């Protein structure tokens, strides 16, 4: 079974017609470059400008190259601790965002009904005046809290500032309740601190690495993949648990093809082996642990034989892998994952992962979890925000008692029901809620209840199609963003700065947020007129030079210890001040104080569980119209096990539709017949099957996993949505 990634290459070399088509397709690129040249008047030769990537949220330091004034390529900044001079494929292809033929070119106001994608191009003044007038009406009628912001990434910082100045606390990102939320809550309940972003994992120094569903290498978080490679170079022991034979599984010493939804049973059994055989880090547990006796009693029945029934993993393999982990402690890293909203009970699974790490003594230790260092740059001294009487809308009565950030789906629910109070305006920054949230019809129902719906984005994403006003943002290559102060192994700041002009009437988000504030009568919240003044003030207050940052792209601080063994004081911000093996606060809230296994839903007859993941060349549903990246992976395929495909008579490349148990059908999608997945599930790369009519290059290419996610169970601890809980069958395309 051999797959080659250059489908278009082969297709085009085979037919003269294809080659001719490719020539005409590249013409607008050249035109765009000429236009920019004329506009910017850039000189001859090579110019290098340091900046920060924004193709994902990792914020790698980069250097953009201009050749004769035209954007040529982008590379990693060797000074940057995240990229180490090497970007991931998305970052390397990032310049395609600038040349995207479908990108937004001017502000748009809706002409007909919401969602019909009929627009009138307007000026910035018209667009912002329209928004400000509607926002003032909402404030007068419902109060300022009735406008919410959904925002992803550092670019949203200034819009957040404007919204807080306006008087709303309702700011949410799908990165919590649809992504890393359960993990951060599980770790916080255990160690008193979240894992954070970038993850505080010391993969490169681990002697044993355990990946549970985390598909490093396909999931292309740059520094993690670089460290993963060093881990392989150092001949560390890799244990991979996944229903799909991932790229990482192909490098593992042990591959555990687990039944989906049973990870907690496996983790409990691992802990059972390590505790019952006395293999845990006794000194560490004794010194820092709380409630270990109660914990060890509660897991005493979770033997490998018990877990075998749940997971399908041979008890001897469970024992062998547990012993392997213990043998390498404390340099055994059980990776906490990132996208962890799977089954609706994920905070407890993440807590089990945290506890396994605690038994191995890896938290705070080299080859385990480090304590991130970051530079202390004071915030800009703004006037105080107004404090309304009404709190956040997303989690009334603390229904989800351990939610540590705002719940997107909670805001959506309040928008539909009007409870605990109405939400009448949505501002959406750089997050395609149509794909990011499950239960798409709920999202659309909420939008239909709004008096104002604004989307700020670079491309006409699917959510933009539902807006009243669409504001076109400069790509990251054309704008400044807020300072990036990333907590990591070494303290540093990086700057995103424009390297080329935008070919359209687009604006940077800081300008949009500031102009909107002025129109709302909140101009005093922006005492600066240009973002560079803002940088100078903040950096100057900390004794750093903006000019130096602008020139180098990265400023580094003094290195400080990041591990217990190097002198970090072991402090745990839990109620007991220790690592909570047994959690009194969970018990008091009516939850299991030690994680317990809950059986997952069984597949209905004739249905397979839908699981999904990442491609190394795309970020969510944001990059599919970037021609450099779509050239590498243009549409997703549904992975179907060979034996299942044989039963249905499918071969690779056949087109089918997926239908879930509620009768929702996907767009036609190609079958990928493979041995690399269990026969009881199918896999899709997330972000495809897009239906934005303005985003022509991606329109209906592949299938959307999120379209098929309905009635996802919700994590009772923190409100995360269980996104791997739907089942699909095959239908004719």
């Amino acid at each position: 079974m051999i797959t080659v990634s250059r489908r278009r290459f082969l297709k085009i070399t085979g037919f003269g017609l294809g080659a001719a088509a490719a020539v005409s397709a590249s013409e607008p690129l050249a035109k765009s470059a000429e236009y920019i040249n004329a506009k910017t008047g850039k000189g001859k030769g090579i110019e290098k400008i340091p900046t920060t990537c924004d193709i994902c949220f990792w914020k790698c330091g980069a250097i953009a190259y201009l050749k004769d004034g035209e954007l040529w390529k982008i590379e990693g900044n060797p000074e940057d601790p995240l990229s180490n001079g090497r970007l991931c494929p998305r970052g390397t292809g990032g310049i395609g965002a600038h040349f995207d033929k479908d990108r937004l070119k001017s502000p748009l106001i809706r002409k007909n009904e919401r969602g019909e994608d009929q627009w009138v191009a307007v000026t910035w003044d018209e667009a912002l005046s329209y928004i400000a007038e509607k926002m003032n009406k909402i404030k007068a009628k419902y109060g300022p809290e009735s406008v919410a912001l959904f925002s992803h990434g550092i670019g949203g910082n200034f819009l957040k500032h404007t919204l807080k100045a306006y008087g709303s606390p309702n700011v949410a990102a799908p990165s919590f309740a649809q992504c890393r939320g359960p993990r951060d809550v599980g770790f916080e309940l255990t160690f008193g601190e979240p894992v954070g972003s970038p993850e505080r994992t010391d993969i490169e120094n681990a002697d044993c690495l355990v990946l549970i569903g985390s598909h490093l290498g396909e999931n292309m978080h740059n520094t993690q993949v670089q460290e993963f490679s060093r881990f392989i170079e150092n001949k560390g022991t890799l244990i991979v648990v996944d229903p799909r034979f991932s790229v990482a599984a192909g490098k593992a010493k042990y591959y555990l093809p687990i039944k989906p939804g049973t990870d907690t049973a496996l983790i409990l059994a691992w802990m059972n082996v390590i505790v019952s055989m006395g293999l845990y880090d006794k000194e560490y547990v004794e010194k820092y642990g709380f409630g270990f006796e109660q914990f060890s009693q509660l897991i005493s029945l979770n033997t490998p034989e018990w877990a075998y029934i749940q997971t399908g993993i041979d008890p001897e393999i469970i024992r062998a892998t547990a012993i392997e982990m213990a043998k390498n402690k404390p340099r055994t890293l059980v990776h906490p994952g990132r996208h962890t909203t799977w089954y609706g009970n994920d905070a407890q699974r993440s807590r089990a992962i945290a506890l396994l790490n605690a038994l191995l003594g890896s938290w705070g230790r080299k080859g385990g979890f480090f304590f991130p260092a970051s530079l202390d740059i004071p915030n800009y001294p703004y006037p105080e925000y107004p404090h309304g009487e009404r709190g956040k809308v997303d989690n009334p009565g603390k229904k989800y008692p351990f939610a540590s950030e705002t719940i997107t789906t909670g805001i959506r629910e309040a928008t539909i029901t009007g409870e605990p109070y109405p939400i009448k305006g949505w501002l959406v920054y750089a997050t395609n809620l149509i794909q990011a949230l499950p239960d798409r019809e709920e999202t659309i129902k909420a939008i239909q209840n709004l008096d104002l719906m604004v989307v700020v984005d670079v491309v006409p994403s699917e959510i933009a199609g539902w807006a009243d006003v669409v504001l076109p943002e400069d790509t990251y290559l054309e704008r400044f963003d807020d300072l990036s102060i990333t907590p990591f192994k070494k303290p540093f700041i990086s700057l995103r700065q424009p390297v080329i002009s935008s070919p359209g009437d687009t604006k940077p988000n800081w300008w949009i947020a500031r102009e909107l504030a002025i129109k709302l009568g909140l101009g005093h919240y922006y005492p600066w007129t240009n973002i560079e003044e803002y940088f100078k003030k903040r950096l100057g207050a900390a004794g750093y030079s903006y000019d130096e940052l602008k020139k180098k792209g990265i400023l580094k601080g003094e290195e400080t210890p990041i591990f217990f063994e190097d002198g970090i004081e072991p402090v745990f911000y839990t109620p007991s001040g220790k690592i909570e093996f047994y959690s009194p606060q969970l018990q008091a809230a009516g939850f299991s104080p030690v994680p317990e296994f809950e059986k997952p839903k069984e597949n209905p007859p004739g249905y397979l569980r839908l699981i999904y993941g990442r491609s190394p060349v795309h970020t969510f549903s944001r990059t599919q119209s970037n021609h450099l990246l779509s050239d590498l992976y243009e549409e997703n395929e549904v992975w179907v096990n060979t034996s299942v495909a044989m039963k249905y008579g499918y071969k690779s490349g056949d087109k089918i539709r997926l239908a879930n148990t509620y009768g929702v059908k996907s767009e036609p999608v190609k079958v990928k017949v493979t041995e690399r997945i269990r026969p009881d599930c199918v896999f899709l790369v997330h972000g495809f099957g897009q239906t934005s009519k303005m985003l022509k290059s991606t329109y209906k290419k592949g299938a959307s996993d999120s379209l098929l996610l309905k009635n996802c169970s919700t994590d009772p601890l923190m409100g995360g949505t269980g996104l791997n809980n739907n089942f699909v069958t095959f239908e004719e395309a």
Partner: protein
Amino acid sequence: MSRLGMAIDTRKCVGCMDCVVACKTENNLPEGFDRDWITTEVSGSFPNLTMQIRTERCNHCSDTPCVSCCPTGASHIHDFGGVVLVDHDLCIGCKACVASCPYDARYIHPDGYADKCTFCIHRVENGEDPACVSVCPTYCMHFGDLDDPNSEVSKLVASRKSSVQHPAAGTKPNIFYLE
């Protein structure tokens, strides 16, 4: 004489295609065409599988059917490091070289000439690695002189188990895959 080549560590490669896109931007390739690509080879049946991921390109062979068959001399071996290149001005786009290459490494550029990996000779002559090598986030690719026993590539090939693609074709390829 030097003989430039690569040693690629397949244990580290994750098939992320960074090498493919770096080549596209470095060499300004037309949309839809690539000079390098990823091949994934899987054997066995679930869950007992083995998988090798390889980044592939022109092997810059020491015995070159693509050069021997070229009617105009466009396909040639460069003085520097034995790199196999195509002179675009001499190429008539007859596709003989495309057909002769056992690695399917060549394509006809929309401008009418045969095109393929150059080992980024414009970078290499300036002392830099090819774009694909210097971008790789897994550091799986090594580039250097295979005729120099002290080079990193020679040492890797000497010390690790490795293989070349299609050895039976007799082309003496200069890209080695470390296992």
